């Protein structure tokens, strides 16, 4: 009884086993695909943010490119230096770490210095507002201040300050470029942190017109270009820094700026104004002898605006 049960069970299983083993052997031969196991290892170390800053479609695509030797681990700007080192060491390749790059905003016109002359109603988004009569800010080139860039930053590196102007946290910024794409006024760009001389204004207006819109607008006086002639030139009415000659982009260039449109970005991300600009700005923000400073200031502006 036991013997027969055993032999039946064993026999059936054996036969089945043999038959299926043959099928498996064929399948193994025909369908085998080799995938480099190192791809998984590299991908596991990447931050999985899929931010696209490296130029590839997500972290896995980047890992594949690194394995193929088409990309250097350092191209992942979202990884910490340790991670990049570790990937490079694992693969035995050069880390290819470049200089840290960050997003910079070419506008300083927060609500404290730049006027809004129309009140936008509707969806709270820069993109939406920019399509409705430009967003209602007097300076039509500057930041609208509804924080679309903050919403798309995957690294929590952008925050709105109390004047509705985004501030880049350069320690967290990985230069992924999402804000560059998102900003409807195209105010962001990616720069190495060694680009310290920074034109923080995008207006095309000149002199009085620019000043009427925003206290920190570039008035196109060209004093910065005079102070650092090798690196700074005037294009229309805005100074342009030639970062190819970054060694000539000296700090002296900001000292004579009357409005603070050109400034100096410290390596830790602090923005420094020239002495003259700081004094001028101080006067705008805290006008002397004016307890009712808000209304009198805006009235004065209106009068000048009407007569001009």
């Amino acid at each position, binding site marked *: 009884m036991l013997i027969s049960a055993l032999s039946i069970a064993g026999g059936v299983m054996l036969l089945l086993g043999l038959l299926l083993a043959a099928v498996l052997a064929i399948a193994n031969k025909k369908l085998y695909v080799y995938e480099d196991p190192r791809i998984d290892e590299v991908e596991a170390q990447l931050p999985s943010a899929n931010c696209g800053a490296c130029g590839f479609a997500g972290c896995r695509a980047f890992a594949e490119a690194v394995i193929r030797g088409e990309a250097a681990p350092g191209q992942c700007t979202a990884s910490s230096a340790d991670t990049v080192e570790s990937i490079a060491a694992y693969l035995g390749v050069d880390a290819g770490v470049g200089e840290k790059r960050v997003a910079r905003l070419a506008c300083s016109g927060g609500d404290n210095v730049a006027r809004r002359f129309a009140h936008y*109603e*509707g969806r709270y988004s820069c993109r*939406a507002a920019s*399509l*409705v009569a430009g967003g209602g800010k007097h300076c039509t080139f500057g930041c609208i201040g509804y924080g679309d860039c903050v919403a798309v930053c995957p690294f929590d590196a952008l925050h709105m300050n109390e004047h509705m102007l985004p501030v880049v946290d350069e320690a967290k910024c990985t230069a992924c470029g999402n804000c560059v794409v998102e900003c409807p006024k195209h105010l962001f760009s990616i720069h190495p942190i060694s680009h310290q001389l920074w034109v923080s204004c995008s207006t095309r207006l000149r002199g009085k*017109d620019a000043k009427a819109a925003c206290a920190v607008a570039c008035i196109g006086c060209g004093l910065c270009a005079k102070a650092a002639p090798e690196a700074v030139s005037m294009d229309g009415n805005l100074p342009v820094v030639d970062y190819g000659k970054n060694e000539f982009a000296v700090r002296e260039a900001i000292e004579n700026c009357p409005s603070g449109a050109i400034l100096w970005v410290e390596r830790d991300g602090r923005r420094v104004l020239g002495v003259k600009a700081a004094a001028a700005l101080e006067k705008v923000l805290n006008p002397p002898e004016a307890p009712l400073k808000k209304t009198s200031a805006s009235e004065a502006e209106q009068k000048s605006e009407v007569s001009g």
Partner: protein
Amino acid sequence: MKSYVNSFPHGVHPPDCKYTADAVIETLPLPPEVTILLSQHIGAPAKALVAKKSKVMRGEPIAEAVGFVSVPMHAPIAGTVTAVDYALNPRGEMAQAIKIKIDPDADQEEIYGTPRDLASLTPDELIRAVQETGTVGLGGAAFPTHVKMKPPAGKSVDTLIVNGCECEPYLTTDFRIMVEESDKIITGIQLVMEAMGAKEAFIAIENNKPEALESMAKAIPAGAPISVRSLMTKYPQGAEKMLSRAVLHKDVPSGGLPSDIGVGCFNVATLLQLGQLLPKGQGLIERVITVSGGGVERPGNYRIPLGTPIRYIMEQVGIRPEARKIISGGPMMGMSLSSQDIPLTKGMSGLLVLTEEEMRDGGGTVYPCIKCARCVDACPIFLNPSLLGLLARKARYEEMAEEHHLNDCFECGCCTYVCPSNIPLVQYFRIAKAMNREREAAK
């Protein structure tokens, strides 16, 4: 089966608010200064021909067309050019503009122009003459008229639809000119028919304007292949696509132009200007606009030089302190203006000054879509605005364009008008289109 005789299916019936229908067209005094934006039309901006301090006479060309899809600009007042630089345009951008200060001694009556014998011109010469007048679609689109008159190669236009519907609430300019200047409109129609080789023309007018119907019918010379069609009063009856459906029962193909079905569509105001300017060889320097809304003290229809700052117009007609919003165009499709410094442009058919009470837009709480399908039943293009709105909120813009025909939407605003949840659908679609355009440009 309901057949849509003299109309199109779907659409909405906003309150018509045509308070200024009986106001005879008045001419406003000339403004002390004008600002001529160099891009008041669709296409390449014009190039300035004058420099600071040049003296110009009234009607003199001050900017020339750049290429075919572009029109020249003419000085609306005699005076001195004070600047050629930037000015705020209705879209809220800084754009190139010429500023002219009036010369108190100059003759403002004489208008620059060389009369010509139109009968001797070939169609192509006629079209060039149209370009020289600087005429663009005065209904609001501001598309250069001469470009419309020259259909793409291989296509011809045999039917002209003259758009006198003026389906937007408040606006009465087209109505007034049809009542007051029907003869010149007919002249314009005949000129355009000649230039395009069209065999017949229909003047489409909504049936809430019996006076206009009557006046136009009277002005048609005996035997001319022009007839008046009375259409159902419904918004957006005045859109090209709706007109071709209402008048000819034909659809303009998706992504195509009316010329694809042999139709040309022109606004009465545009034709009036052609009828007036072409024989004298003058340029477009003024237009009739409706100034209306609860924020205006003397609403009416006014003939105003182009480039007049809105602030000046408002001073003339009186603006009430309750005014909260200034709209260029009608309340359904018009643009809200951010500043009174913006000058009058060729595409502005009206200025509405609305009070808080009249607007009731956007201010309401936005509720979730309850799928009431009112937008689906209102969309004259037969899209599904509710679905498009959901996709837009998820930023699936490409899918909207590729699978759900976003680009057929012409932003008439019907869906947003009827939405009980106050969802800003049209705004979503504009954002989606802008994003798609940007993505295309990046490629």
